[in-house]
């Protein structure tokens, strides 16, 4: 069954078009579209424009050297991809992580969740023709980046969560700043809700577009915001509470519409929960050390581990196979974008061309992450 012959009866009607890789609606990513007039008959994603062979590189580097390059693919969400890696290596080495380090991991992970969702909402505003949200989200995202920079010292690539704890302690002034930021951001999110989510124009442009049913979400292995917008209450933080997540009170936001609007709104609700968690963690930060001394080349015993956490976009997972040598024998990175990629051709069926960008970005798809 080749793509060319499949639509032979309508060969003169069906037109195939490439969306991307240079296109405002699809950066570093191409969607092959088959169009019938204004309608998309069939779509096929063409990824791999940013495939950098992270998994092969992981086999050439030891467990400490792997930290910086692993966070580059998921640059919006860089702490959340290091957390399952650190958890996996800790599990293999039977490290007992100090309580303060666990809380700092949570703080950094939730801060990154907000940073990632703000970028997501900004670009979703762009695709839904809502310029205010771009400028607001891009501007406010920088306050959270500042907060993360005060803790970790970098703007986007923190390399903060490492096997054995976190890299350094949080400075005391960052705690006050963080608490103030949480209070301010709570009010700010009410404004987002008013200007964007209660906007009739946004409703018209996103309601009922790209609907993913709950059954499809399960069958195609959707995760994260996509699954939660389709009524599937998946949240690894709740399911298997890692890194002291069971200390905090928070909810898993779930919506049932499964459309573009729900996927955007779930991101906002996620941020509200993230602010709650950050506030609790900053207030109850336990004293103690923040990292174990593992040495530059930690010896990891032979074994296999499958560790997973809830990143901003969904389930981040690692399959680490160690043979006892300083380097991983196999390092499989399971990223949510790659898991949600299968949903895209399901959604891009019988939709208008104009709806492609919001549907595509509504999946919270980050091509760099999917390609690895």
């Amino acid at each position, binding site marked *: 069954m080749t793509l060319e012959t499949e639509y032979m009866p309508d060969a003169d009607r069906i037109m195939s078009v490439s969306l991307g890789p240079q296109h405002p609606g699809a*950066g570093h990513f191409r969607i092959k579209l088959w169009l019938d007039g204004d309608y998309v008959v069939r779509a096929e994603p063409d990824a791999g424009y940013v495939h950098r*062979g992270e998994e092969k590189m992981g086999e050439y580097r030891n467990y400490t050297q792997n930290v910086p390059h692993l966070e580059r693919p998921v640059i919006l969400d860089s702490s959340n991809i290091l957390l399952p890696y650190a958890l996996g290596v800790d599990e293999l080495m039977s490290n007992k992580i100090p309580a303060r380090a666990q809380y700092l991991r949570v703080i950094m992970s939730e801060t990154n969740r907000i940073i990632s969702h703000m970028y997501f909402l900004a670009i979703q505003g762009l695709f839904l023709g809502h310029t205010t949200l771009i400028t607001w989200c*891009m501007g406010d995202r*920088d306050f959270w980046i500042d907060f993360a920079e005060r803790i970790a010292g970098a703007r986007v690539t923190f390399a903060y969560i490492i096997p054995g704890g976190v890299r350094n302690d949080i400075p005391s002034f960052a705690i006050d700043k963080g608490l103030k930021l949480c209070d301010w951001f709570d009010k700010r999110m009410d404004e987002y809700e008013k200007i964007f989510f209660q906007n009739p124009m946004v409703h018209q442009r996103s309601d009922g577009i790209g609907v993913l049913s709950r059954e499809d979400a399960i069958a195609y292995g959707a995760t994260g915001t996509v699954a939660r917008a389709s009524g599937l209450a998946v949240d690894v933080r709740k399911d298997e509470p890692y890194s002291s997540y069971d200390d905090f009170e928070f909810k898993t936001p779930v919506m049932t519409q499964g459309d573009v609007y729900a996927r955007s709104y779930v991101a906002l609700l996620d941020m509200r929960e993230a602010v709650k968690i950050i506030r609790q963690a900053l207030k109850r930060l336990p004293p103690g050390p923040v990292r174990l001394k593992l040495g530059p080349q930690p010896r990891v015993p032979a074994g296999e581990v499958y560790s997973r956490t809830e990143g901003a976009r969904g389930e981040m997972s690692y399959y680490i196979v160690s043979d006892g040598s300083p380097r991983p024998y196999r390092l499989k990175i399971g990223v949510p974008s790659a898991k949600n990629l299968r949903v895209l051709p399901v959604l891009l069926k019988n939709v208008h061309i104009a709806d492609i960008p919001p549907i595509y970005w509504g999946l919270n798809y980050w091509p*760099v992450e999917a390609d690895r």
Partner: protein
Amino acid sequence: MVVAQQQKSGAFQVLVGKIDDVLQYAIGDPMRYLANWGRLYSLWPVHLETACCSVEIGAAAGSRFDMERFGALEAFGSLRQCDLLIVMGTVTRKLAPRLKLVYDQMAEPKWVIAMGACSITGGLYFDSYNVLRGIDDVIPVDVYVPGCPPRAEAFLQGLVLLQEKIRRAPSLSGR
């Protein structure tokens, strides 16, 4: 006789040359300056994201760093209208032909900023099987902005450097 004529035409040529110089200074140079000054503050970058540095471009274009105040704003229109190509990070083997295609479609004069360590030397991905070690053998580069990823301020500095280069461009064509 012949010598005198030669001297005469030589003097004439010198005179013409002088007039040319004068005209060059009087009209050509202001024209060049004017044209390049016009280009300077209306740089339109292509929206071609190649890798993760595009996040920092997003931040630079956002309301805090506000790339537009330097006269550059990401163009979401046609490639033919753009005159700046920002290579935002790693260029893979799959993307390299597309990058060249995008560059070839842009109208002259055009400039290239190589952003991030990956687009300069391959950076962190020096031993990856799918990454180009720098983009110099694909397209010519005007300004290199190092960093992994460069901060938004560093990118803006690169942009200002490029504007300085355009201001000092020796010819009317902007190169």
